[in-house]
């Protein structure tokens, strides 16, 4: 019987098989890269907000402490978003007619809250507690970056489980003196022993930090 396929098909077949292999490997690698890209993690992506609030102006230039707005960061699991009244404590007197602040004034007058787009978002199965981190000496900028240099807020770190675990397994480099927690430009000391001393002093239960129920309930 005559051959169905001419010999040149050999080459095509090999190319196609190789191509499938490259496609599978390349495809998997692309998904891997995609998952770590800002498309997925939102790192560095500025989000539109109802009011273009500038942390750079308020926290950086004016030097307002983080806790003035995020009041429950050291007492509760939830750091707290400022209520409209907090904004109005200043903006009922400063820039009180500015068009940019119209949504704030309207919210206060109509008693309807402002709906902000959440920048630092965790999935629902993560039960994150701010207060314990603050009380143990993890600073705001360790996780949220240089918020005082953000004209519009963006997410500074990818906040994946692996990223959280990298600290939970080895918290020492990320600890600071309790007085420096809200200091934006603090840097990790060169000497690793400082962090180790703090971890012991502050009675950080390192074994428990890698238990699932520390974050997932």
């Amino acid at each position, binding site marked *: 019987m005559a051959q169905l396929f001419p010999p040149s098909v050999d080459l095509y077949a090999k190319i196609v098989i190789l191509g499938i292999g490259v496609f599978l490997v390349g495809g998997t690698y692309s998904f891997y890269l995609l998952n770590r890209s800002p498309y997925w993690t939102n790192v560095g992506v500025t989000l539109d907000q109802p009011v273009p609030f500038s942390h750079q102006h308020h926290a950086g230039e004016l030097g307002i402490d983080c806790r003035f707005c995020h009041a*429950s960061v050291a007492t509760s699991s939830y750091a707290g978003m400022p209520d409209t009244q907090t904004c109005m404590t200043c903006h009922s007197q400063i820039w009180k007619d500015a068009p940019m602040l119209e949504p704030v004034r309207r919210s206060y007058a109509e008693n309807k809250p402002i709906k*902000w787009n959440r920048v630092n978002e965790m999935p629902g199965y993560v039960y994150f507690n701010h*207060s314990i981190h603050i009380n143990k000496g993890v600073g705001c900028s360790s996780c949220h970056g240089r918020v005082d240099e953000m004209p519009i807020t963006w997410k500074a770190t990818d906040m994946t489980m692996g990223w959280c675990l990298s600290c939970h397994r080895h918290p020492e480099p990320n600890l600071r003196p309790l007085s420096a927690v809200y200091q934006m430009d603090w840097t990790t000391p060169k000497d690793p022993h400082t962090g180790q001393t703090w971890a012991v002093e502050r009675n950080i239960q390192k*074994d428990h930090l890698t*238990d699932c129920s520390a974050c997932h309930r």
Partner: protein
Amino acid sequence: MLRLSPLSSMKSLPLPPQVQIDAGGPRFWKSLEEWSQSPDFLPYLHREFPEYASAWDNGMSRRRFLKLMAASFALAGLTSCSRQPQEKIVPYVRRPEEIIPGKPLYYATTFSHRGYGKGVLVRTEMGRPTKIEGNPDHPASLGATDVFMQASILGLYDPDRSQTIRQGNDISTRDAFTQFVGARIEAHEQDQGAGLFLLTGKTTSPTLADQLQRLHERFPKLSWCSYEPAAPVRAQSILGHDAEPVYDLSKADIIVSLDADFLLDGPANLVLTKAFSKKRRDPAADFNRLYVIESAPSITGAKADVRWRRKPSEVITFTQQLAAAIAQGVAGDSPEIRQLANDLQQHRGRGVIIAGDYQPEVVHALAFQLNQTLGNIGSTVTYQEAQQTPIPTTSLPDFVTALKRRAASTLLIAGANPIYDLSPAWGFSNAMARVTHSIHLGLYDDETGSRCHWHVPGSHYLEAWGDILAIDGTPSLLQPVIEPLYPDAVSLVEVISLLVDLPPKKGYEIVREFWQRSLAADVPAAWELSLNKGVVAGLSPQALSPTPVVSVRDAPPEDLPNSSDLEILFRPDTAVDDGRFANNAWLQELPRPLTKLTWDNVAMISLATAKSMGVTTGDVVRLEAAGQSVDAPVWIQPGHADGCVSVTLGYGRSQLGEVANGVGFNAGLLRSSVAAWSQALTRAQATGARLELASTQHHFSMEGRDLIQIETLADYKTDPSQAQENQPNPPPEENLYPPFAYKDYAWAMSIDLNTCVGCNACVVACQSENNIPVVGKDQVFKGREMHWIRIDRYFEGEPEDPAMHFQPVTCMQCEDAPCEVVCPVGATVHTSEGLNDMVYNRCVGTRYCSNNCPYKVRRFNFLEYSDATHPTLALQKNPDVTVRSRGVMEKCTYCVQRIESARIDAQKEMRPIRDGEIVTACQAACPADAIVFGNINDPASRVSRLKALPRNYGLLADLNTHPRTTYLAKVTNPPTAI
């Protein structure tokens, strides 16, 4: 190897096996089928879920199934490609000062049940209540709760609650109603209130009493009737009026219960359980003895050291014989009477006779006489004057007669459901139709409400201001913990205010003004203090009047049924009570303590009665009494008295809500009056129909191994560690797993089988705390109920009259957990503190862990059980616990959210977690303090000391799982000579 028939499409599920009593079976058994070891039963037992429960009963072929699964597997990979949707943060506009998002606030209020209050602390998150706990400062709660208190929070968010004012068939407004009331006021000012009729439930509220007095002043001829379908009987002949016995079980060595389910039922149940359990905690110290005589098994009967089962008329004759034996010192003919009389005489002044709330007056009078003769009054029991009503009341029969006479032009019904409670023989429906204007105030537009011209939605106790008295007379306030969910909802005091105040006042003003007059002036900030503590400050409890010596003639009751007649006895249901909680899904699905039934009520009979009637469990019989008939499924209950049928009230609702309608049968139809608790049964005829009953008694069975360790007090005193020695195989020394040192905390739990009474409070508390879903009768039938803690009920002995034992079972948090090693995705792992963590987001639903668990404590979400359609139900959910979706395994976590919360607080304060700081939900609810949680790395902690007791043993310890939850063996105290 078990031969199972091949999977095929199932049209109907197999019925529970028929009972054949052949030979004696295992020592502890959970049902008659298990006792008889009938061949039908054994395969039923060997599978964790009843046959085919894990089958998908759908007519799909395997080929098509595999095709679809392959396609969805391929597509599943792509679903992870979607990004999280953008979430919004919505802060307050003006944040309330005391609310910190993420931190719960606790408020004290009072739960009212059948007219008496029990204090609660309500946990609120961001302005909405999520959990009820007991109030340690309230004398009727002492920090504990019962099933009704725990489940009441679901009632607040019930989607079937009425939301709007209705006039006729139209939705109306508050203004229209106020106008209507104004017109009625004018009319009644003409007739001085002769046409104004008021029908309520029992109330002890001082504010309401004050308002009723003002109403009476304004309309002197008004008629007020207050009744409770489950009102206890009290003997009028003592003291000339109703006398309320108050028991002090801490002083009682011998307790005799004449069909009194005092551990579960009544306004004093929590107090009595606590006192009873205190004297059973330590066999080395004072240990009481409980004698119970009853017709239908109850949990008090289950705790009894000596239990006699008698039908209702025989209970009366027994009491008469006992009274004669004690009074005249005669031996009495029966050995039981002799023995009991002897024991009581030996413990004069330290015994107590408790007459059941549903026993006739003669039994109460005799009990009083016995207590008096034995010198118990003043030590274990005191009789105090029952609460007097603020204005004269009309009896219910007179009230109905007046309605039929067309005497009423305005009828206000609040907190009562006469159309449902009363049998049709009363003709209440007819009577109501003759009222010109009828108004109904209630949580639901129920059977009575729908027949009224006006229906006004009632506010739930968690959203209203008010006050109430506890059974011992202590007043406490009710404060709302949430704005009324439905703006039109009002409370009874607000409706009465419409009639007496101009302008009408809101609940806060009414209650505040009343107490401003009544609070002790010398107590600083008395109002705030009362609200904070949950008990009115500065007011001493009602003084007890001295008990005079009264000789009581025991008159025989009027119609004692013929001893050969079949009798019927009625009891409020242990979960839905008199019907008011029938729409509460948690309570409907709660396995009843003795029968482990859910979602139905039954006609309970004994084995002998069943044989004589020729019926078995599940057969439907037609019961006829007092001229009415009702169809009821039969349930054979070991331990039930012969010659009588017991039924529970509260079922057969027709107009309450999605959960309640059509479930069970209305046993109240057969009652000759609201005071009738037992009467003759005219007829009981099998109809030939059958009803599948969903009982959980076989579910999650641990297959007959000796799980309960019991010893008598006498044996305990000779050899305290008998329980440990009785273990079938001591745990082997070798272990495949490497040892692990638990350095910081090691969480563990101890459950005392001695003090646990089986009341089910822990089951509902766990459901409330951990967002556990309700699955419905069909799914319970397949063994898929989701309760993380279950209370296994074991019988011991002969099927006619066995002993009964309870054992709460939670996840044992085994140190060498069989479930952890078989999970393919690592969704269940062990923590550094000994907890077996369940990570829901990793679980793929293999169910191998559940397969491997010897205790059968894991629960799988076979379907999407959590409710996503009703927005109010989402408000009840605990935000600290994940709401599980389908396909995910769940189990008891030792309330890990509470552990973490306590740890974070302790870490912030740089101190260790104190013993007793973490209280699991089940531990907090338990009135008997049977569950203790703590750190076994601390030798001084309560749980460590309990585990060091000789009675301590682990369940299935020979499997070498090293369970962190261990039990303390039960000790019984039967008298030495009978």
